[in-house]
């Protein structure tokens, strides 16, 4: 294995690693100004993004491609057990991950230049992003789980990097404990699969469960994996940490968690479960030891994931209904959105994956963008409660409009990318026929339910008058806040929010380029297997 052929495909990852190291170097040198660090981070992310887009063959960017077309979507020879493997869907996900990192780093550029902990923030952020990119190329279970840990460990620390804040540290503690538990569960599941198949390679594991002779062991293994990965995806009932963590973490980190790292769980779901879900045995692999009927891996997993999806979206929405704090409301909404995304893998067809991937893309923009706004308006005297946003939309029309747009997109209102993604996802569910239509029904009813609390926020923002107290406090806080451009948000953040908003509307109006690319990738993914 010569160096270029090993390193070549990993240009984006190496860019990020280089960025990290440079940041740590600057830290050591004492150059800790936020502007410099963020410039490094943004540059690294942008370069990585360009490289990934080049690999995906986006028009003129394809000159930047570091992967030869033959390296993408080519099946490895049977029997070989590669640990990583490039798929176009993986590249799409890399682009999505990098987009979320880009939004966060851009927005963070607006922080005060003497922001404490900036080096560790950017360093860990880039490292986590690097882990995310690695998740997207995994083709081995252990590689996948370790890559997830490359994301998780920096995430725990990112949540707690405001080490003087109790809330931040408490969130880190909760995140860590539940994360560690989930890691154990995932690895335990992987060990069971390893026991059943004698390998951890996902290509090899995709063999028929019945040929292995351990149908129940395999099911248990997948069960552990579901539980372990569900932590990342924040499926109910594995979700409880997420709300506290999104709430307690600095909002920019929340944006990164909700918009970015959560999605690696979904891609992991794609990688791990797509094969089994698509398996439909005519003859059942075995009997359930507890009675009740035959064990049939494909449909069994599909039903389980479907139930989880419905439970997740419903509970997430119901929890969000009466929530009084903005960040927690967004967190609950994020949980319910995970339920929609899970529909994609439950169905497992290329259209469904397309829908889910687009939903993930949309969620990066909507939820990430929303958290960025929340993070930015703290300086404008907006408190944590939803009621603190009274009259916000009227007082700050542009920011308000962007935030409203994100909420509307989350609610799935047309002309936004949130609508298109749900539309394609639910179309795919209907198109798959069978019981999957009920997933679409449940999802749609849930999105209707969700409208209630998004509309409530809009109500507060536009229809409620701010009380004198709130206004006074807001004015005072705004006055004491450092002078930032772009309506108090800072230029970097304004650009990030603007970028998200433009993409929300742009892709919502003309989704064809994005959706077309995703669909092609998903098609390869499904037809080639992992």
């Amino acid at each position, binding site marked *: 294995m010569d160096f270029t052929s090993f390193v070549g495909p990993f240009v984006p990852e190496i860019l990020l690693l280089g960025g990290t190291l440079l940041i740590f170097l600057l830290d050591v040198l004492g150059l800790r100004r936020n502007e410099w660090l963020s410039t490094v981070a943004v540059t690294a992310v942008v370069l990585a993004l360009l490289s990934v887009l080049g690999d995906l063959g986006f028009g003129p960017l394809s000159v930047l491609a570091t992967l030869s077309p033959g390296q993408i979507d080519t099946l490895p020879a049977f029997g070989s*057990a590669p640990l*990583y493997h490039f798929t176009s869907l993986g590249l799409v996900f890399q682009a999505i991950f990098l987009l979320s990192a880009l939004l966060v780093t851009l927005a963070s550029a607006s922080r005060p230049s003497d922001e404490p902990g900036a080096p560790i923030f950017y360093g860990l952020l880039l490292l986590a992003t690097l882990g995310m990119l690695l998740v997207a190329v995994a083709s081995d279970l252990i590689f996948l789980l370790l890559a997830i840990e490359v994301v998780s460990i920096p995430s*725990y620390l990112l949540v707690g990097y405001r080490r003087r804040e109790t809330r931040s540290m408490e969130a880190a503690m909760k995140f860590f404990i539940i994360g560690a538990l989930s890691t154990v569960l995932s690895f335990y599941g992987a060990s069971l699969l390893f026991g059943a198949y004698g390998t951890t390679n996902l290509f090899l594991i995709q063999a028929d469960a019945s040929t292995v002779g351990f149908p129940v062991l395999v099911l248990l293994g997948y069960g552990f994996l579901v539980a372990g990965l569900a932590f990342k995806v924040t499926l109910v009932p594995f979700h409880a940490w997420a709300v506290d963590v999104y709430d307690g973490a600095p909002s920019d980190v929340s944006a990164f968690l909700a918009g970015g790292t959560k999605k690696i769980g979904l891609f992991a779901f794609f990688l791990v479960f797509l094969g089994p879900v698509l398996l439909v045995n005519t003859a059942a692999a075995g009997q359930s*030891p507890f009675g009740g009927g035959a064990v049939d891996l494909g449909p069994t997993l599909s039903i389980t994931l479907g139930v989880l999806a419905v439970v997740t979206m419903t509970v997430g929405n119901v929890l969000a209904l009466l929530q009084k704090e903005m960040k927690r409301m967004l967190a609950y909404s994020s949980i319910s959105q995970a339920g929609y995304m899970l529909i994609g893998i439950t169905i497992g067809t290329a259209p469904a994956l397309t829908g889910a991937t687009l939903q993930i893309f949309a969620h990066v923009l909507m939820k990430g963008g929303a958290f960025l706004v929340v993070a930015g308006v703290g300086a404008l005297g907006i408190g944590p409660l939803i009621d603190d946003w009274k009259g916000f939309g009227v007082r700050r029309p542009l920011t308000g409009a962007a935030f409203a747009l994100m909420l509307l997109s989350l609610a799935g209102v047309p002309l936004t990318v949130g609508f298109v993604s749900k539309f394609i996802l639910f179309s795919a569910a209907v198109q798959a026929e069978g019981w999957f239509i009920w997933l679409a029904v449940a999802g749609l009813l849930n999105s209707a339910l969700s409208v209630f609390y998004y509309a409530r926020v809009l109500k507060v923002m536009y229809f409620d008058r701010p009380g004198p107290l709130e206004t006074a406090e807001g004015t005072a806080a705004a006055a004491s806040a450092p002078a930032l451009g772009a309506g108090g948000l800072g230029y970097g953040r304004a650009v990030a929010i603007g970028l998200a908003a433009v993409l929300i509307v742009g892709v919502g109006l003309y989704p064809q380029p994005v959706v077309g690319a995703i669909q092609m990738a998903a098609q390869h993914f499904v037809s080639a297997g992992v």
Partner: protein
Amino acid sequence: MNLEELAFLALAAVAVGTSVAALLVRELVHTILWVAVFFVDLSAIYFLLNAPFLGVLQLGVYAGAVTVLLLFGIMVTRKRIFSRDAATGIGPVPLALAAVTFIFLVASLGEFPQGTLTVQSYDPTALSGALFGNYGPWLLLLGLIMMSGVAGAIYLVREGRE
């Protein structure tokens, strides 16, 4: 029942016993002791399974480093080392959850071949070759994990100026 089986049963009993004891004793320092025994016990099981490299690693990392780390943690967070943990009950719900998990797990036991199987042994050289060859990326990932973990952990515990 042959010797290996007897040895396994003994080691298994010790493993379960020490782990339970570690969690139930109320003196934190005693807990560390029990845990240390548990780690050593597992190391013995690895030796039983013809995996001496792992056994050694277990002794070094777990019984050594991890135990010390934990002890260190107790020392730092406690005013007195020998202090009792706040009483926490056993709780029927956690017990039931753990038990049900166990029951689900052992439900698959029927699929395993009855009787004994020969334990394979692997050459540590082959293992290291694999670790730095085919499975190299795992180690690389581990390296990334450690790097971020160490960097972040140091930042967190450092009494920085803010």
